[in-house]
């Protein structure tokens, strides 16, 4: 069993892996390009639990938005090789069988594959903060890599752009239901990534009508909206 991640003292990478790590592209900074010309990677992670310091990334699903469309031919899906997880409630949620984990891909290999797929593109995720921290920690521990890519939170964009129709809890299920989206298999990283991307397409279409057509513009509007939300809370 590969217990490299467990020894804690820096990752053990082979020559080839170090080479690949060195070739990864630096993250893009959000700019004024129209959204249609921006490649975006929509990410969803399944994890062993919700504890951001202890739990592990079990699988990664990602789809690409480019030219305002989701390209079904360009997708990323991997299950990571993990030591047998205690069967907890989270197994019931992500539904990844212990046998699937045992047959998974070496984590260093899987994460390098993902980072190559990602390239310099900004990321989108639902409750992006969680995915960002889980991914950053996995990259740090497994590859000694510091994640600097920008994350945009779809969970935040949705109520900002549709303030009147905000569902009660504002979870992914609520929004997919609100827009009558179909998820092939909820809590499967790829399927969740796809439905998050569909949600994002709806949001972008709506944003464009409000004159927001670049990541930079979206970013500043989110900033503004966050401040107002905080002000209202106080």
């Amino acid at each position, binding site marked *: 069993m590969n217990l490299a991640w467990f020894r804690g003292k820096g990752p053990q990478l082979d020559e080839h892996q170090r080479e690949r790590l060195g070739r990864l592209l630096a993250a893009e900074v959000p700019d004024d390009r129209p959204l249609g010309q921006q490649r975006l990677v929509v990410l969803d992670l399944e994890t062993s639990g919700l504890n951001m310091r202890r739990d592990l990334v079990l699988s990664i*699903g990602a*789809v690409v938005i480019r*030219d*305002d*469309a*989701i*390209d*079904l*031919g360009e*997708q990323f*899906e991997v299950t990571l090789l993990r030591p047998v997880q205690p069967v907890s409630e989270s197994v019931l949620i992500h539904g990844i069988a212990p046998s699937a984990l045992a047959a998974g891909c070496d984590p260093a290999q899987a994460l390098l594959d993902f980072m190559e797929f990602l390239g310099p593109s900004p990321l989108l995720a639902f409750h992006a903060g969680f995915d960002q921290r889980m991914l950053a920690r996995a990259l740090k521990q497994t590859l000694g890599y510091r994640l600097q890519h920008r994350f945009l939170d779809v969970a935040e964009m949705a109520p900002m752009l549709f303030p009147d129709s905000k569902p009660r809890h504002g979870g992914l299920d609520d929004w997919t239901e609100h*827009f*009558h*989206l*179909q998820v*092939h*298999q909820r809590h*499967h990283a*790829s*399927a969740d990534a*796809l439905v998050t*991307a*569909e949600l994002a*397409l*709806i949001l972008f*279409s*709506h944003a464009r*009508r409000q004159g927001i057509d670049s990541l930079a513009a979206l970013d500043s509007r989110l900033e503004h909206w966050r401040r107002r939300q905080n002000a209202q809370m106080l």
Partner: protein
Amino acid sequence: MSKNDAFAEAGKTAVLQNIHGTMEFLRKYPPFIQMENAHLAYLVEHCQLRFYAAGDSILKPEDGPVEHFFIVKQGRVHGERPHSARRGTETTFEITAGECFPLAALIGERATRTEHLAAEDTFCLLLGKEAFVRLFALSSPLRDFALRGVSSLLDQVNQQAQLRAAETLGAEYSLDTRLGELTLQTPVSCAPAMPLNEAVRLMHEQHVGSIVIVDPSDQPVGIFTLRDLRRVIAEGCSDLSRPIEQLMTQKPFHLPPEASAFDAAIAMTERHIAHVCVVEKKRLRAVVSERDLFSLQRVDLVHLASTIRHAPRLESLTALRSDIGLLVDRMLAHGASSTQITHIVTLLNDHTVCRVIELTLEDMGNPGIPFSWLCFGSEGRREQTLHTDQDNGILFEAADDAEAAAIRQRLLPLAAQINQHLAQCGFTLCKGNIMAGNPELCLSRSEWSRRFASFVREATPANLLGSSIYFDLRVVWGDEQGCAQLRSQLLEQIADNTLFQRMLAENALRHRPPVGRFRDFVVARKGAQKDTLDLKVEGLTPFVDGARLLALAHGVEASNTLERLRALMEAGVIETQDGAAYEEAYHFIQQTRMQQHQQQARLGQPYSNRVDPDSLNHLDRRILRESFRQAQRLQSSLALRYQL
């Protein structure tokens, strides 16, 4: 990457969750349902998924040659065409989940002629033209579907219907079979000069019930049947060597080989004959007998009709009603069309009505006054189903009002008795008292004429309702001339009265087809009728009302809805394409209704016209929705024509 590699690769990516999920989704719809796995995987992984907000233009003529094959993943797409007569646009079709577009433009390598708009928030899968072309070459289900378009959908429905029929009865033939395709015996024929006894010997040797008399060029000039032999003997003919041409029935009825078994059955029933010659290019090809049709269908239509016609007592007629039900049941199971069935039900009902009148006359004594028995409404339109009630009246000739009143007094008891007898035979008494026994409906020709004129002149709601019943009239029994005169007067009056036409048009828009803007069907929200829609009132009535209005306004004499539509197309009142679409739609709704009635009868439930669209299979549901949409189109064309 070579082609084979590409498909091997597709096989691998099919395990990806989202590719797999999208394939599963597409597998619910034709043509994807029949496509090979590798081809479908190739399709999905070459797709883009795109979002269109409600009102967004997806594809328009100005975009130039179409570059993508679109599949609706979620939402609805409308086709908008510039309005032919008015500014603005009209919706010509609707496309929903699982359906694809624009096939004709894509295959024709041209721009679309119709702008495609998102009718609500919509996601489409877009397959690039290059990948489409490659799949088109490889996948025959996709190719067939694309080339045949919507007609292939209808084919599938027909195939399903026939499959079901075959399952029920194990039948190999249907009434649609062409006479030319039936395996019939070589016809037995002879020359006009053949002596009677020789002709009969020939029939006996060949085990046939008829012999056709032909001229030297093999053209039929007469027919002689066993029934004729009986007549000849009964009339005391002693000279058995008389030439057959003196005894035969001249000019025998004939049909071309392209005619169907159904046509032959109808001809036999209508004309009370047992043999029909099949003639091609003026030469005798075959003879179809009642017995041939029985063995073909095991449905005793001709026999049933003649049994009704010769029923000795009212009780025997009553007993025969259940046979009609059985017959319709079997015909539906054989995949007979709704038009064939309404035709047959009407025919058998007409025979029953005639026999009831004759028996009642025998019973009560003939008053010796000529009269015609009229029928109205669905009976008048020849559109009866098993579930039918009485709408009838009497027309007679009288010199003046006084004479009319006197005749009426003598006919009314008879009429009332006929109504009662019909009720015993299964024709439910009319709740609105639209029956010949009602003094207001037992009228002389000039009284009817005045009554109809007042309907046209004073368009009160009651009169409008009346015109929608009475103006679909025809004669079932008795002389037809009075009724024909009445009808031509009526057509003249209506042609001159645009105000009345406009009121009829308003009336024809009362029942809106249940297709909503935001959902595909609008069903009842609550109560016992929750989630259902009414096939008759919401689906058929718009066609019936629309066809009646246009027929009356344009001098069309037919009373049957489909015949009216055909006459209107010929007269150029409605465009041929539109008319054909209306016909098909009307036909399909009627078919759905009958299949439902048949099922209700089988389960011992009362007849109902309400159907839950969700209970239909995917294909039927889709076509039903399109059919309702055609009713909507007919209504909007009326609204436009009459400026409503």
